[in-house]
């Protein structure tokens, strides 16, 4: 932990999202809607990691996420960890879990799907870890989790 704190400035209150694959960092930023944020955020890109070789990390001041919000991340980065920080202390650590339903996040890859032709939100059902796919609520197309594209 010491080493990491050196790499990215410490946080008084807020959320640390760790173990983000660097290739997914920008998708994570967009899923969290950080561009709409007023508080400060620090991004560490391509940091050294024992587990992953390289990873990215995001520290967001004065922002706490609901489970629903953070579970959306599992689409692109299923192994991230979240730490809630209060008064420089980690008070809670969480992993993300794939929600049963993903609304307005994933794009359907069927160009004849209504969601690609009408101003509306997409909706996908998670068909389970074993199958590893999402199914479009509208056209029933199945998309493998490794091929997911965001809206």
């Amino acid at each position: 932990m010491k080493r990491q704190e050196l790499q990215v400035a410490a946080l008084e209150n807020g959320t640390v999202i760790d173990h983000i694959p660097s290739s997914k960092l920008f998708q994570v930023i967009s899923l969290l809607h950080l561009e709409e944020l007023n508080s400060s955020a620090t991004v560490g890109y391509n940091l050294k990691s024992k587990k992953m070789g390289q990873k990215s990390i995001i520290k967001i001041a004065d922002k706490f996420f609901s489970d629903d919000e953070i579970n959306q991340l599992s689409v692109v980065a299923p192994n991230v960890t979240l730490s809630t920080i209060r008064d420089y202390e980690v008070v809670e650590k969480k992993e993300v879990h794939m929600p049963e339903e993903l609304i307005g996040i994933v794009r359907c890859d069927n160009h004849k799907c209504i969601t690609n032709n009408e101003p509306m939100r997409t909706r996908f059902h998670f068909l389970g870890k074993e199958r590893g796919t999402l199914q479009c609520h509208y056209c029933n197309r199945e998309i493998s989790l490794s091929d997911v594209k965001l809206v």
Partner: protein
Amino acid sequence: MENRSLVTIANHSRERIEYLIRMAQEFEKHRNRRLLEGRIVATLFFEPSTRTRLSFETAANRLGAKVIGFADPKVTSGTKGETLKDTIMMVSSYADIIVMRHYLEGAAQYASEVSPVPIVNAGDGANQHPSQTMLDLYTIYQTQGTLDNLDIYLVGDLKYGRTVHSLLTAMRHFSPTFHFIAPDELAMPEHYKMYCRQNGIKFVEHQDFDADTIAGADILYMTRVQRERFTDLDEYERVKDRYLLSRAMLSKAKPNMKILHPLPRVNEIEYSIDDTPYAYYFQQAQNGLYARQAILCDSLGITLDDIINDKISFK
């Protein structure tokens, strides 16, 4: 308010399917009724399909409803550049129910979520066509006296054939044995075979299409093998005549065997078969009327009891 839309019958229970069949039986007994008198049925065909539209409009007319709508959006300036939602909102302020056909997949599901009146899916792209499946189920029941434990042979385009996929799914409650007969390029997709395994549906794949192969059939469901479905046109030329049904191939057929086809056919059923007792595709098309009368009534909240107790509305 409960949403009574019919988008798909993929999730219908056995009881629900049997209920709709019983309704259709009542309409077969008396097709002209006044159950929908004073109601307005809108038929919105964003993609032309004369056959399906005529069937729905006849169903509505024979129940005493009035019909509004369009048959082809190209001649309807009203929908140009407009979102589906806007069209649905506009029409739902006029009509009590909307029958909709659309070239986009999932259009009916979306319409049912935004519409204040029930939506009946009359086909959404390659996705669902529940009224076709209902009329197929009704026809199978009508000809066999049951839906249980039947040997159903599916022949032709099993890859893109929406009707055969829906039939497969709907039959899962009734312990069928399916037989697949198709060219390699149009074989039943792996995920439907997986579906069969997961749902305990027996299936057999056959290489040949001849009198011996189909001797055990209760239902022989023919579909068209279309040239444009092939990536390899040489392959099409090789197989195109192999999936045609000739009269000679019926020599070993069971007496109760019936041939179904979603129509239109081109040449996949020899015309001389039409006057054999096995041919049933025209009655099947007529059953579309009863199935759609049942669907319209059910979506408008009219129950089987309402229909059975309706003694005065015959014309």
